[in-house]
């Protein structure tokens, strides 16, 4: 469910420019509409847009006008104390309640006094509004202890009088900066838990939630496709050119963080620079790290955590050590000793850095947040500037060149991740199923099935009598999570450790760990590679104290006979990629349909003239044949495509003299799109002089006769013809 296209009230973006979060929005709106909603936490990491998310929720609830008064309140670092914040809270609630009841969002920006606002209340709300207004007026001595509770209880008071309220309290983690922040949060939790109202507490995910029983919605960084969508939108809005490669690099390097992505584009726009090469991105990025918004955000966190120069310098030294050494974990006591701060001050520093995810505090250790490229660059640049006293130019050169060198590695990692089998997820789905044992034995699989048709293999697998019972897996994670020292030589997405029980008996003897890796080998993997990997995975299992383990290697083309012998000696399983994909069919039956719905998309551009339509025809013939279209249909498709190309060449007066074609194959059809620049077909046909006898102009008729569907699509320039041929069963 998406937000209605409501008026922009508190949100910073129009609803249609808010990327992603569809599932999360649905969860929150469903919660708000529940008859007894209670409380919910919305937790997020820094910069992922949680505040914008909550403001979009507010705007949506306001526009819905279902009778539930939405109330949004953001806790700010600038609030000096709990009393001041409570007063602001009460005023905000009054303003928003009256604005909602009067359906007049402009009241939210008014500077009316509380008494004036109260006068605008509807008579039915008068009782509780006037009471809240009364309580919120400061006395001569300021707002006392009692009034804090009263100010915070405005929504509960309204609910007690029959008004339905849904409160969104944002940035709860900012209370860590208040001297009496803990008290504020406790009062808030107590008041809201007692009342009959629905509410959301929004906070950084590392800020401890008060009630672990509450529902939680996590706002995660944007996915790669969502980052791309955001980048595309910013590119268009700000006039900053990007391409497919740079769009993806931006998403990967900035790790789906919308705030950072927006900062990068804003900086590029100010510089009138494009982001259409890795070099351009690195240049704008390095400026942002050094003196832009991204760097400033980091600086503000460090300034608050370590306000004096000595502790700041020491902090930078420790952070540099954390981001550059492996393993990047230090006992917290060492930090405490080296800083020599009073305990309270040290605790506050650690808490702030943890909440803002500059570091990760886990029990008694402090470590760098792994894979955090931007934070690492900020740390390195600040260290170079402030501790090593290097010049800004030298630091920029360092950040820029490192970014440029890193870019291809980041992209390579992305491509490898995208192509990985998802071993961890696959192991997680092991749940005592019985699957053909041959799927874990490359030697037997090769002998029985290599070279056979895929459908035939699947049918025969279902008839296999020798079965392997998989364990019940209770926990799976990357191998590096179990043994960080191995992180340098393995990739997270291609190795996994899964613990479970062979027969669901939950005894020591029944416990087992599967340690698996997807390894690289152009041909059949040889014995040296197998030995190396078996050693690595054994080391992971030993480090994690797994007595019973099963090693499983997956190589793209399987294993050589010598490697198979070695696998047997080490009681390890070896599968080819094909076997692993087939295994997935048994583990997840819904995937049986995925192969059918796979779309093959092909694109070709040919110049006009010189019978180049034949090149296109031969290409589509190969495509159609590959997807098992019968020969008769293939010939029809070829002829229709030739006609479309001739049409483009003859009528378009195209300036670039190119014909763009796309062949999209689905399970039951092929869609062919032929497009070109120049005159539009309708305009060109109006101008065409038909020779006597009227025998020209048969192209379109032929296309319609040979294909199942033909559409000429409206485009601003040139022509786009879309044709479809359905796959019919072949005659035997």
């Amino acid at each position: 469910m998406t937000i209605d296209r409501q008026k922009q009230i508190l949100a910073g973006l129009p609803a249609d420019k808010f990327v992603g979060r569809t599932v999360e929005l649905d969860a929150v709106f469903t919660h708000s509409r529940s008859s007894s909603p209670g409380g919910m936490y919305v937790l997020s990491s820094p910069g992922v847009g949680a505040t914008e998310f909550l403001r979009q929720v507010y705007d949506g609830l306001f526009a819905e006008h279902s009778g539930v008064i939405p109330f949004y309140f953001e806790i700010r670092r600038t609030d000096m104390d709990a009393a001041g914040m409570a007063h602001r809270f009460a005023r905000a609630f009054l303003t928003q309640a009256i604005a909602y009841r009067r359906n007049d969002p402009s009241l939210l920006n008014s500077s009316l006094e509380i008494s004036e606002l109260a006068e605008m209340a509807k008579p039915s709300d008068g009782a509780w509004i006037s009471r809240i207004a009364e309580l919120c007026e400061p006395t001569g001595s300021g707002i006392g202890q009692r009034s804090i509770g009263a100010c915070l209880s405005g929504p509960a008071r309204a609910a007690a009088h029959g008004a339905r309220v849904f409160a969104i309290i944002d940035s709860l983690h900012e209370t860590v900066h208040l001297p009496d922040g803990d008290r504020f949060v406790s009062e808030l939790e107590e008041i809201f838990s007692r009342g009959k109202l629905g509410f959301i507490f929004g906070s950084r995910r590392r800020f401890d939630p008060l009630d672990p029983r509450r529902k939680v919605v996590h706002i995660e960084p944007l996915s790669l496709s969502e980052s791309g969508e955001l980048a595309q939108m910013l590119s268009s809005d700000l006039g900053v050119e990007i391409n497919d490669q740079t769009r993806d690099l931006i998403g990967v390097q900035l790790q789906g963080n919308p705030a950072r992505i927006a900062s990068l584009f804003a900086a590029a726009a100010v510089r009138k620079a494009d982001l259409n090469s890795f070099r351009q991105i690195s240049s704008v990025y390095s400026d942002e790290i050094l003196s832009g918004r991204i760097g400033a955000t980091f600086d503000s966190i460090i300034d608050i955590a370590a306000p004096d120069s000595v502790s700041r310098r020491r902090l930078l030294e420790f952070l540099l050590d954390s981001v550059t050494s492996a393993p990047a974990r230090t006992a917290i006591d060492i930090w405490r000793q080296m800083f020599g701060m009073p305990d309270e001050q040290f605790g506050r520093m650690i808490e702030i850095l943890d909440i803002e995810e500059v570091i990760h505090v886990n029990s008694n250790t402090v470590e760098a947040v792994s894979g955090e490229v931007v934070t690492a660059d900020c740390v390195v640049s600040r260290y170079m500037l402030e501790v090593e006293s290097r010049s800004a130019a030298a630091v920029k050169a360092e950040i820029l060149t490192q970014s440029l060198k890193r870019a291809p590695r980041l992209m390579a990692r992305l491509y490898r991740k995208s192509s990985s089998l998802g071993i961890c997820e696959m192991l997680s789905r092991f749940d005592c199923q019985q699957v053909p044992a041959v799927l874990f034995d490359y030697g037997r699989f090769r002998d029985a099935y290599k070279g056979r048709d895929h459908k035939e293999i699947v049918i025969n697998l279902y008839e296999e009598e020798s079965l392997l019972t998989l364990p019940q897996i209770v926990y799976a994670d990357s191998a590096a999570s179990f043994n960080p020292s191995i992180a340098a030589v393995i990739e997270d997405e291609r190795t996994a450790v899964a613990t479970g029980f062979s027969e669901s008996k939950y005894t020591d003897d029944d416990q087992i760990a599967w340690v698996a890796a997807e390894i690289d080998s152009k041909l059949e993997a040889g014995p040296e590679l197998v030995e190396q990997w078996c050693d690595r995975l054994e080391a992971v299992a030993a480090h994690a104290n797994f007595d019973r383990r099963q090693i499983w290697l997956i190589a793209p083309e399987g294993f050589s006979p010598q490697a198979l012998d070695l696998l047997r000696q080490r009681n390890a399983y070896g599968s080819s990629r094909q076997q692993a994909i087939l295994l997935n069919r048994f583990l997840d039956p819904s995937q049986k349909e995925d192969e059918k719905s796979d779309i093959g998309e092909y694109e070709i551009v040919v110049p006009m003239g010189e019978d180049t339509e034949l090149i296109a025809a031969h290409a589509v013939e190969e495509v159609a044949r590959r997807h098992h279209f019968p020969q008769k249909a293939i010939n029809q498709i070829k002829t229709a495509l030739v006609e479309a190309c001739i049409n483009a060449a003859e009528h378009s007066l195209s300036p670039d003299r190119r014909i763009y074609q796309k062949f999209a194959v689905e399970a039951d059809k092929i869609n062919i799109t032929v497009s070109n620049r120049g005159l539009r077909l309708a305009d060109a046909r109006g101008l065409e002089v038909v020779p006597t006898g009227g025998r020209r102009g048969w192209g379109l008729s032929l296309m319609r006769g040979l294909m199942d569907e033909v559409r000429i699509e409206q485009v601003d320039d040139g022509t786009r013809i879309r044709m479809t041929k359905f796959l019919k069963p072949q005659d035997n």
Partner: protein
Amino acid sequence: MITERELDVSGSADEKSAVVLAGDYLNKITGEQIERECKRRLDEGCTQLVVDFSQTDIVNSIGVSILLGVIDSAANSGAKVVFSKVKEDTIELFEMLGLTNHVTLV
């Protein structure tokens, strides 16, 4: 490339036949070559034009249009037109555009 030879396809003693080989792709260029050759043969008094499609894989609408011109020219000269060894898919195309009403298929 078009080749041609003289053959008596129909077997009639009065008929003078010419065989013209259509190439693998019957388009504007190859169509015009066929047209020129056929006209030459008609001028020489040919009474039966045999167009051999045994090697023809693709025919486009311009090629068909030119063939219709050849058929018209032949009709005006009192000659017959025969299409030989036409692939099934090409026959379907010719039928769609009405050519098969005016020629003999062998």
